[in-house]
């Protein structure tokens, strides 16, 4: 497996709007990579730069080691599945799918053969003579995917392709897309704002925030050890504590927060620095008595039943709320009772806070 797409120091600036900032990203051949982030984070712009619809203000984009920034979209060996499908309304499904091959002047018999084959693959047999307006959203989606895949692109770019579908169909298409990707062994770069979708489908996820790549990793890495506060809050549910390191004993870190102090295990933190601690609801524990390393106390406020799990809402003295998650059937404290929330120190994720830049700046001044 080699690098198929390489983005080096890619920047995109529209007027005064810096949309993509110093993006470095390498996509491996045959992988399913998701660009994940909220709207306006630069993920779609990044995809459009790879497709050739936008030019990077700075930086280089390589496909199979060859720079492509200067190439027009029609000269690039990548294909796109558009969010709005962008099917040609005046062409039949057959002609829509055959479009790319027709442009490459592939012989007619071969076009017929290949269209037939791909239509079978996406389960659209019998729809050849219909027009896009006669299809449902899910069917249009399949046509859009078939139209792109038939060209055997080096990379398939997908821009929130499932955004317009209802939940049930979306779940089904997620699995189908994943199956197609595995079967054809084509590199997918997939843009979505849906973190669940990203976790389900991707080999690796690149999380973007305000034009910056916050973290790149496998779904497990991103879920278990988020690199920034944004990643921690964006992926799944979590409890966030902002505070300051008040005690460091090797890898044992104690953090003072508004409601007391908490603990975690991590290296590379020093006394006095700002820190964010993230603990997933399913890792949270509680006790009737004081636990070593933790001084926070809360009141059980409410329960929320979410199918197989129960979420327990705990209010802290300053009004902040914590979430504990338990499987249904496990014992839970009564509403109104006081509990001491805690967790295994290994289960907490400790994140350097961005506010430390001020701290470091002050440090440098004293040194100078």
């Amino acid at each position: 497996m080699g690098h198929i797409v390489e983005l080096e120091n890619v920047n995109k600036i529209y007027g005064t709007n810096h949309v993509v900032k110093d993006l470095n990203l390498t996509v491996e051949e045959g992988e399913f990579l998701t660009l994940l982030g909220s709207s306006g984070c630069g993920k779609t712009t990044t995809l459009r730069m790879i497709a050739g619809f936008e030019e990077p203000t700075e930086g280089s984009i390589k496909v199979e080691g060859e720079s492509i920034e200067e190439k027009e979209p029609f000269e690039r060996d990548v294909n796109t599945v558009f969010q709005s499908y962008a099917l040609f309304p005046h062409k039949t499904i057959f002609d829509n799918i055959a479009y790319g091959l027709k442009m490459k002047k592939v012989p007619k018999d071969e076009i017929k053969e290949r269209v037939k084959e791909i239509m079978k693959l996406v389960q659209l047999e019998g729809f050849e003579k219909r027009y896009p307006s006669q299809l449902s959203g899910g069917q249009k989606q399949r046509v859009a995917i078939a139209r792109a895949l038939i060209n055997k692109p080096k990379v398939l770019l997908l821009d929130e392709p499932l955004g317009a579908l209802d939940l049930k169909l979306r779940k089904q298409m997620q699995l189908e897309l994943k199956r197609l990707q595995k079967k054809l062994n084509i590199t997918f770069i997939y843009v979505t704002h849906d973190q669940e979708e990203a976790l389900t489908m991707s080999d690796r996820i690149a999380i973007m925030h305000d034009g910056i790549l916050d973290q790149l990793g496998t779904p497990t890495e991103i879920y278990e050890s988020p690199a920034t506060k944004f990643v921690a809050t964006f992926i799944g549910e979590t409890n966030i504590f902002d505070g300051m390191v008040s005690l460091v004993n090797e890898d044992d870190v104690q953090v003072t927060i508004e409601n007391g102090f908490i603990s975690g295990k991590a290296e590379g933190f020093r006394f006095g620095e700002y820190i964010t601690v993230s603990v997933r609801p399913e890792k949270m524990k509680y006790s009737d008595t004081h636990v070593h390393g933790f001084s926070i106390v809360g009141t059980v406020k409410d329960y929320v039943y979410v199918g197989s799990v129960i979420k327990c809402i705990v209010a802290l003295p300053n009004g902040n709320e914590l979430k504990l998650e338990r499987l249904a059937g496990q014992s839970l404290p009564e509403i109104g009772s006081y509990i001491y929330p805690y967790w295994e120190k290994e289960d907490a994720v400790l994140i350097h806070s961005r506010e430390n830049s001020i701290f470091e700046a002050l440090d440098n001044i004293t040194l100078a």
Partner: protein
Amino acid sequence: MEKSHSKHEWRANTLPAMVMVGPVTLVLLFLVVAPLIFVGIMSLCKTDEYYNVVYDFTLVNYAKLISPDYLKIYLQSLLIAFFTTVICILLGYPFSYIIARTKSKKKTLLYMLVIIPFWTNSLIRIYGWRTFLGSSGWLNSLLMLLHITKEPVDMLYKTGTTILGMVYCLIPFMILPLYTAIEKLDTSLLEASSDLGAKPVKTLFEVIIPLTSSGIFSGSIMVFIPCLGYFFVSNILGGGNTDVIGNLIERQFKSANNWPLGAALSIILILVTLVLVKIYQKLGGDMDSLGV
């Protein structure tokens, strides 16, 4: 009970409707429908030796209209209209494309360039062309000044001059529907086409033109039909050598003073128009974009 209910309904629905639609109906009735019926009747009338209208039924006016002299002018008129339409498409399409795809303030400016000439009477603008193109006009003066020609070039009173005037007068009617059609075009379709390997020219013929054909179509109708009737353009720029159907009608009503024959010609022109619009509709044209 029943009666008061219907009275209430009359007040609530019928009365406002009548107030709203009434005046327009009256205007249309007296200024469009009645004159049309009158023209229809007149086309079936005879004239006496002094060309006074005699209300006596005859088909002789229509019989006259199939003489070779008239047929020649119909053909000439259709050809002028055809070339005018083709030139309007060729000039109007790129311009409309640019306006539709330009963003921000420039767009308004370009749009105004099309609209502003409308605010001046077209007769005056056509006279302007005659002055501009005449043997002592600006263009010839300029050509001689630059020593491109020694003598003034004879530019007036040719079929080409009439077509030029027609294009000038009618091109906004081509640009506006084209603009509407092109603006509706989804940019992602163009991106998709390019993404699938189509060069710009291919995208033009495979995607852009087919998807804006409705605009080309309604623009053509709106140029072609008036072109058959714009007699003043041919009068001023064609000098009587490039008659269109409109000229024949004008002549019968004015110099020849044969109103029944003029009426018959008018009816023919109306029928030609109706046939063209019907064809347009049959081919799937949108009546709304004609302003009908």
